[in-house]
């Protein structure tokens, strides 16, 4: 579905529309009711000059050029809330919003923060601008060694695709270490790509940089196709989404599961390891790309419920109505921009919801989230004691040493 830039010779709106119609189910756009459910449910709809419904209206009127001059599209966190509610099954996030970002990017309308993340992704293979050689540096803290598949030169059962934030972000790294510890304890045969791993590229794609996504996908596919393994497991829902839904369209088909699905299968082995654990109320936050986009709602909840002492509670928005943490669609790289436009931060909104249900722990299953929510918790009154933990951290904490 590589849709290239609009040729200058034809009116922008007509070309844009045509490109949408080529995307699977894109023709549904013609059936839009202008019900505005999309714009209403959109967490940043209030701060957009062109929320999705209006974009379609202006497109119909043939005057969508105006949108290119606005930076409205950069408010979209690609959360799929609009897609979820649309009565006409219009692929709003996948087609309309993402294509609009691609056009803004081609027109050179790119916020500076996002630009540097994209440049870093090109130069280093990760949006944080960290050395690619240090991609496996997090594993030095472990008391056992994780095979780097290329060096180990042997087949492994599980190819663990670690991902960007899970590899480099000091907070997310703790989750990565917890998962490694658990896999090791369970005696799973696994390996990583280490310095050969590139960003999965999904967030760059959702931020409108399709070409960069394809380039990164090609690089990963080349490395992975040289490895022998049974399946890919990842803790990163964005990587999971890329491998599951996007890479196959480029001809790269690898079996993949999110770690929560994988661990549920191993619950029988994990349960006996649990020790006495304190009591706590846990609110689980569904990451957009695990929940709404890929419909994995139960696996993480099953894991939490299996941990002794933990009581699973739900926040006002949960499962298919979950609220985005704000990191999607390039949100990790648009924090300042979005704050300036909206003076609100979705992560803070979400933390307030956790406080409202008296949660002791806000549980997550995506490496973007612990830093975002911990950060937000510092700013919210009442959240002083709220802990943010990835599900796998809860498991490893309950197992102890």
């Amino acid at each position: 579905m590589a849709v290239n830039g609009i040729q200058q010779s034809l009116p922008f709106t007509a070309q844009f529309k045509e490109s949408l119609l080529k995307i699977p189910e894109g023709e549904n756009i013609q059936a839009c009711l202008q019900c505005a459910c999309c714009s209403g449910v959109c967490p940043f709809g209030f701060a957009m000059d062109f929320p999705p419904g209006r974009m379609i209206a202006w497109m119909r009127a043939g005057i969508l050029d105006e949108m290119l001059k606005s930076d409205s599209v950069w408010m979209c966190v690609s959360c799929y809330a609009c897609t979820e509610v649309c009565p006409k099954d219009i692929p709003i996030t996948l087609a309309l919003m993402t294509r609009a970002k691609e056009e803004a990017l081609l027109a050179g309308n790119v916020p500076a923060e996002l630009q540097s993340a994209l440049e870093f992704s090109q130069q280093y293979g990760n949006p944080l601008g960290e050395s690619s050689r240090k991609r496996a540096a997090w594993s030095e803290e472990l008391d056992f060694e994780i095979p780097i598949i290329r060096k180990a030169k042997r087949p492994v059962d599980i190819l663990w695709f670690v991902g960007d934030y899970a590899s480099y972000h000091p907070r997310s790294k703790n989750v990565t270490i917890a998962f490694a510890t658990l896999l090791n304890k369970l005696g799973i045969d696994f390996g990583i790509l280490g310095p050969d791993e590139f960003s999965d590229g999904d967030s760059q794609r959702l931020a409108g940089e399709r070409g960069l996504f394809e380039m990164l996908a090609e690089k990963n596919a080349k490395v992975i196709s040289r490895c022998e393994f049974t399946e890919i497991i990842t803790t990163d829902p964005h990587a999971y989404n890329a491998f599951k839904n996007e890479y196959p369209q480029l001809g790269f088909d690898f079996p993949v599961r999110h770690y929560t699905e994988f661990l549920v299968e191993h619950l029988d082995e994990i349960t006996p390891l649990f020790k006495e654990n304190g009591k706590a109320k846990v609110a689980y936050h569904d990451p957009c790309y695990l929940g709404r986009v890929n419909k994995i709602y139960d696996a993480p909840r099953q894991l939490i419920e299996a941990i002794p002492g933990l009581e699973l509670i739900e926040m006002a928005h949960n499962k298919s109505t979950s609220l985005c943490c704000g990191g999607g669609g390039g949100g990790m790289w648009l924090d300042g921009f979005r704050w300036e436009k909206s003076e609100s931060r979705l992560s803070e909104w979400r933390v307030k919801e956790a406080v409202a249900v008296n949660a002791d722990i806000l549980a997550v299953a995506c490496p973007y989230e612990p830093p975002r929510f911990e950060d937000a918790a510092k700013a919210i009154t009442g959240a002083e004691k709220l802990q943010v933990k990835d599900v796998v951290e809860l498991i490893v904490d309950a197992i102890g040493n």
Partner: protein
Amino acid sequence: MTEIVVIARLVPDLVEELEIATSGTALDLAWLRLIINEFDNHAIEQAIILKERSGATVTIISPEAEGVEDMLFTTAAKGADKLIKLTGVGEEKPTNLSMAQTLAEIIKEINPDLVLTGVQAHDDFTGDLAPQLADLLDMPYVGYISGISLGDGKATAYKEYPGGILAEMEIALPAVLGIQSSEEPPRYVAISKVRQMMNTASIEDRDAGVLETDSGVVIDRMYLPEVADRAEMLEGDEEEVASKLIAILQDLGLL
């Protein structure tokens, strides 16, 4: 039409840890990752801005290095017209003077109105390229420029003087200018546009000829500075710590 030449160099990427070669007098190339010299990137942007403002032909010349083609195609996607790669540069870093001599020959053929390049490159030990180039081309040179407008036979440019003072300079053309920052930050071009350029644009190869690597200065040793992995903690009560801090500021020449 105004002719602008930009020299763009790749330099060691400081995000990566640098290593010293076994000779002890050079960087270990196996460990080097290269990245465009940031000032050169600004020079490219400034050239494109001038082209967009009043029309110009922009030629980019780069000494060969790993990744230089990608860098050149990226400049084409931004709007550069001609791409030249200097081949046969070799592993050992040539002196800037001899690099300037080679570049000057090529630049003379183009007969430009303006030659832009980054004011410095962080790995330059044998002088700065831009002013050397200016001397060989018998053109005036001004460095630390952050803004240019072209007039009849002259350029008006803004140069940084010490103390953050800006000076308006009038420079007779043709001239070489050392760019510190472009008027707008270097733009982003979508990878799809760069990939398009890879299929359509062409890079002209030019042989660098014989490059001198010995400047006459003897390098005894290259080494990494000692860096502590944690802050040196200043101990004592508030008054004592304050006076220690002041001593440090004085040592650093900041007070």
